[in-house]
Each structure stands twice: as C-alpha cells, then as structure tokens.
C-alpha cells in the first residue's frame, strides 16, 4: 500500500513487519525517529519485541549480539559517533557469524562535530565483515531491510548486514513508499531458524580464543562468504521481485544510461537521485553521460563494475567520504577494478563532495562532469570555499 511517509517511520514499520525478538539502540541524530517509533510500537503492544534501552551504542551492539546468539532475530540502528563507539562489537558480531541487521543513518564524523549527512561513518567500517548496502530513496531503504534479513540469515551466509541510508535526506525525508504487506513479508522472510544458539538443552561455547593455528581460516571463511554473497544478492533479488514486483536487478549496481556513455559518474546513496536528473538534462542536450550507482559496497562488485564501465572513456568517482592521506574510498575500488585489465576507462578521476552535509546541487554534478577531462584528478573537492582556508588560527 502506498503511503506518504517519513523515511524513519517507514523503516520502523518494516522492522515491525519482520518481528524481531530483541531491539536495542541508543539515541543519536539522525537515527532517533526510527527507534522512537519502534519504542512506541512496543509500548502500544503492536509488536512483541523486547526493547532494551541501553546506556551506550557499545551496549546496544552487545545486547543484539547476545540476543542473536540466543537464537532470535535482532535489530539495531545508529549513526556516526555511535557506529564508531560500537566498532569493536561490530567486528565481533561478524567474526562470531551472527546475522544482525543494522540501519546506519549516514552522518559525518567528529571533529568538528557535525550532525549532517555524508558517508564517512559506514565507509570507515568497510573492513568489519558486514555486508553494506546503500539505499537511493526510502522505497529502497524499506525493501533493503527485508533483503538484509534474508541475506544475513541465509545459512550459507550468517553474516551481519548494514543498510545505509543518508541521514536527514532519507531518514527525515517525506516520500511515497509502497509499504510491503505483512503476508508478502511473511512469504519472503520466514521466521529466523538459527544454525547455532545458546540453549541449555544443547550447550555450546561461543567466542573462543583462536591461536595462530585457527585464526586465519576464520578470516578466509568470511572473505569467501562475502565473495559468494555477490551471487546470493542476485538470487534474493529475483525472489524479491517475484513477491513484491520491484526489480533491483542484481542488487549490486544500477546502470543509468551507461551503455553508450562517454562520461559516467560512479556514486552511492541518495545523491544518485540528483545525478540522474543531471544525466537526463544533459542527455536532452545530446550529451552522452550516465551514472553507475553502487548498491553493494561490501561485497564490492568488481566484475559488475568492470562489465558496466569497460567501454566508457571517462569515469568520475564521487565520494561522500575521504581516506585522509590517500585516494578517496570508492575511487580506490574503481581503480582496482580496472588495474591490469585490457579494457577500461582512459580516465578515472576522483571527486569528493557533500562532506558534513554540504548540499550537492544539480550545479555540483554539472561541475563534476565539467572537471572530468583527459587530465585525471584525484580527490578533487567540489563546492569548496577557498576563502575559508585563508583564515588562520593561533600564533
């Protein structure tokens, strides 16, 4: 049923539909509306979930870890500093192979403190062993949570999944969303049937010390599972389409006018809506431009990216995050995807935009296309205010 809703409320509604046994979260802007709505649903008796009001994000992640290990479906949500504060638990959850699902309301990180959107938080945790998928709009944000549980709880996977949605832009944005009906949710996502759990009827020990004889294989196993998840995402997408009638193709990338394009922007998340508008405008003027939208950042779809861009002469990678002292995060992956390959873009330029919530406008995207020339650039900041840099502090 189509509803005009706030993104956060839509997420709370879909989490309610998945009937988690335990929800635990600690408030942080811009995640708050999601967990407030869930708390109200629990208070109203609309869901039977246990809602654990913790004293920190570290404990929120630890509570869902413990509950997931006890064999129930779990949910948490956070953002920015909160994600960083739970970082060691985030790694721990993946290493223990627990199918936790988390929403990351993407936000800039401190210092300076800033509550507005970029993607530095989740991208900084790219090596944690979580699948990370990025939504462009609230319909996707809703649908991706169902897909996240399906993938995480798949007995071939048993890895946590982070659904990333841009803070404020999506979490607080009002959009039309086709809310999945409960019967269809039940059909697509059956109840969680754990592969292993803490149970007095069949006691097991979890979280053991692994010495050099055993540790490496645990990491290798996650790496292999991540690679296989590329195919599982596509499988799940087909099933999702058959139940809900929305086709996310392989759930790895979206190709928007890339086939004959001479210039393509690669980006992730809500900014892709803006880029599509610019592509439409420029196409109307006869310019051969396009967009390759990344949906899955971990696992990174190298083969799909290669296929999509191998005949495109110029590619601009637009990062909403930085790796200070190195190339921007997505740009690194793009360059790696083509290194040593026969085909590929002549130019892969890297641009950084929208940090700390600075608006990425239609003009910003035009500027990216303008700066995408034969001269390759790296970490070129868009919409920078050079006059601010002239100010000096201290002696």
């Amino acid at each position, binding site marked *: 049923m189509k509803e005009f809703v706030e993104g956060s409320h839509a997420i709370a509604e879909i989490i309610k539909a998945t009937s988690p046994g335990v929800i635990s979260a600690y408030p942080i802007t811009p995640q708050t509306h999601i967990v407030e709505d869930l708390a109200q649903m629990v208070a109203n008796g609309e869901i039977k979930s246990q809602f654990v009001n913790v004293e920190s994000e570290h404990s929120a992640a630890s509570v869902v870890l413990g509950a997931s*290990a006890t064999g129930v479906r779990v949910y948490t949500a956070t953002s920015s500093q909160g994600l960083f504060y739970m970082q060691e*638990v985030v790694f721990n959850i993946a290493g223990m192979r627990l199918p936790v699902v988390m929403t990351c309301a993407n936000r800039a990180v401190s210092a300076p403190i800033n509550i507005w959107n970029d993607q530095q938080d989740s991208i900084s945790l790219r090596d944690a062993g979580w699948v990370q998928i990025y939504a462009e709009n609230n319909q996707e944000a809703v649908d991706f949570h169902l897909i996240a549980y399906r993938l995480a709880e798949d007995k071939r996977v048993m890895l946590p999944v982070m659904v990333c949605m841009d803070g404020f832009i999506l979490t607080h944005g009002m959009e039309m969303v086709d809310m999945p009906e409960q019967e269809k949710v039940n059909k697509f996502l059956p109840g969680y049937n754990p592969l292993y759990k803490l149970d*007095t009827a069949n006691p097991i020990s979890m979280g053991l010390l692994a010495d050099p004889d055993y540790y490496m294989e645990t990491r290798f196993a996650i790496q292999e599972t991540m690679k296989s998840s590329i195919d599982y995402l596509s499988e799940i997408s087909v099933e999702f389409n058959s139940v809900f009638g929305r086709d996310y193709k392989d759930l790895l990338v979206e190709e928007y006018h890339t086939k004959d394009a001479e210039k393509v922007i690669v980006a992730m998340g809500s900014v892709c809506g803006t880029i599509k508008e610019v592509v439409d405008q420029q196409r109307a003027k006869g310019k051969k431009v396009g967009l390759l939208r990344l949906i899955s950042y971990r696992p990174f779809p190298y083969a799909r990216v290669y296929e999509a861009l191998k005949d495109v002469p110029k590619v601009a990678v637009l990062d909403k995050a930085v790796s200070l002292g190195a190339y921007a995060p997505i740009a690194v992956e793009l360059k790696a995807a083509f290194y040593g390959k026969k085909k590929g873009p002549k130019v892969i330029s890297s641009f950084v935009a929208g940090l700390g919530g600075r608006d990425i406008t239609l003009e910003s995207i035009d500027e990216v296309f303008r700066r995408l020339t034969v001269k390759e650039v790296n970490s070129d900041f868009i919409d920078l205010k050079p006059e601010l840099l002239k100010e000096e502090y201290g002696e």
Partner: protein
Amino acid sequence: MENSPLFRSGHTACAGCGQAIAARLVIEAAGANTIIANSTGCLEVFTTKYPETAWGVPWIHSLFENSSAVASGIEAALIYLGKKDSTNVIAQGGDGSTGDIGIQALSGMLERGHDILYVCYDNEAYMNTGVQRSGLTPFDTNTTTSPQGAQSTGNLRPKKPVPEICAAHGIPYVATASAGFAQDLTRKVKKAISIKGPKYIQIHVPCPLGWRYETNQMLSVAKLAVETGLYPLFEYEFGVLAGARQITPKPVEEYLKTQGRFKHLLNSPEEIKKVQAVADNNIKKYNLKAEV
C-alpha cells in the same frame, strides 16, 4: 569421567588458581540451566582455547567490557522466547573488566533491572596481561604498573568500592565472597539465583602468580584476607547492609607477609599502619568484630 560436567578438567589455569576454584563452585551452585556471558580475561582464556572448552553450560565470550550487555541481550531473548523463568543468566569477569572498563555496561545492566547474576572474580589486578594495577588493586600493592620504588610504596590509591557502587543502584542483592570460604560462596550464589532481578557477587580469588605465594597456600591467604578485615564478607539487600561475616581481627601484617606483592611493606611500620587503618575502617563500617 570428570567429576564436574559443568566445569571440566583440562583447562589451562595456573596450578592452584583461586579463580578456577571459584568459577567451578559458582556454576555448580547455579546448575545446568544456566547461560554464561564471560568477559575477556584469565577465566575466558584458560577455559576456552579452541577447540577445547571447559564449560558444560551454554557459554559465550564477546569482548572485555561488554559481558553485562551481552547477558542483557541473552536475558531479553529468553523473555521473548518464554524461557526466562527456567533459565539462569550469569555475566562474569575479572576485576578489571567489571570495575574498570566494564563498569558502564554493568551499571546499565543493574539500572535496567535485568534478571541476571553478575559475578566478579576479584584477583585485584590485570593478571591475564601480566599483573598490572586495576581500580580494584588494594592500597600499597606492588604491581607491574604500580611498582614499589624510591618514590613509591606501590599502588597509592584505595580499592574501588564496586560492591557499594552496585548496591547504590538499589538492586535486590549484593554480596562479597571468597574462594577460601567455599560453603559461604555456594550459599550466596544459590541465594542470588533464587532472587529475581539484578544481583552482584564479588569473589576474592587469590592468584599465586600475581600475588606471589606458593600454590598450596591459597586457602590460608584467602582466609587471612577475611580474618584481618581487609576483605570483608558482607551482604546488601536493596541497598542496605544486611549482614557481614564476624571475625576476631588478626593484624594485617599476618596477611601481608604471606605474599610477595606486599613484601616491600614488611620493613615499614608506617605503611603497615596505613594498611591496618584500611582494615580497621572496614571492621567499623561493616561491624565485623565478633562479640566476645
């Protein structure tokens, strides 16, 4: 066949480990219908080195400071599954993971009212990493990070009162116990398990390596700690002192001379006086002196 199916032989604790004794007594008192969340530390390392485990009950280790929160999640899941009434949940760790790095998660667990027993095995320093000072290291103790030297008599701060901090949450039960008083320890664990809500038991567990005494001296060391008044055994109910084990106080020197970690104090009457003041204060505070 091992004599305890819940805590099996073959673990790699040091010979004479007080924590191993206490941990076995705790799980035997709590019984098979128990799930344990264990912090990082000696107990975790010596009982669960893959592919071995000493635990016959469901057991999980996540991190150093989060066993209280992991246990909270287990308890919440058991409530959701309708299994809480038939299952005990224990969170446990050493003094560092409990009173230092994990005190926030512990406080949260107590404040939220989870039906969990928290057990702190207090060997009074970070033993797993090589005897570094913790907040629960006693006054004047020589550790690797509070060494005795020309300008120092060891750890210059008093022991952190974690039981009182827990009691201040108004939880139904707080107790201290000792590996040297097995029956008292067993009774307290059984009592705690029978009470609904958050409970905290802190057990004094001598460490032959960190405290520097012969492995067969565990009992006398543990008993002297209690009998001098340096480790009072008391119980709090709903934040109010409910009782303490009565003693005929012995001078602290008798305790100090049993261990290498206090050796530097033995020729310093002044420092012994200060340690005696700690014991005297406990004796007064908890009314430990037996009526003659």
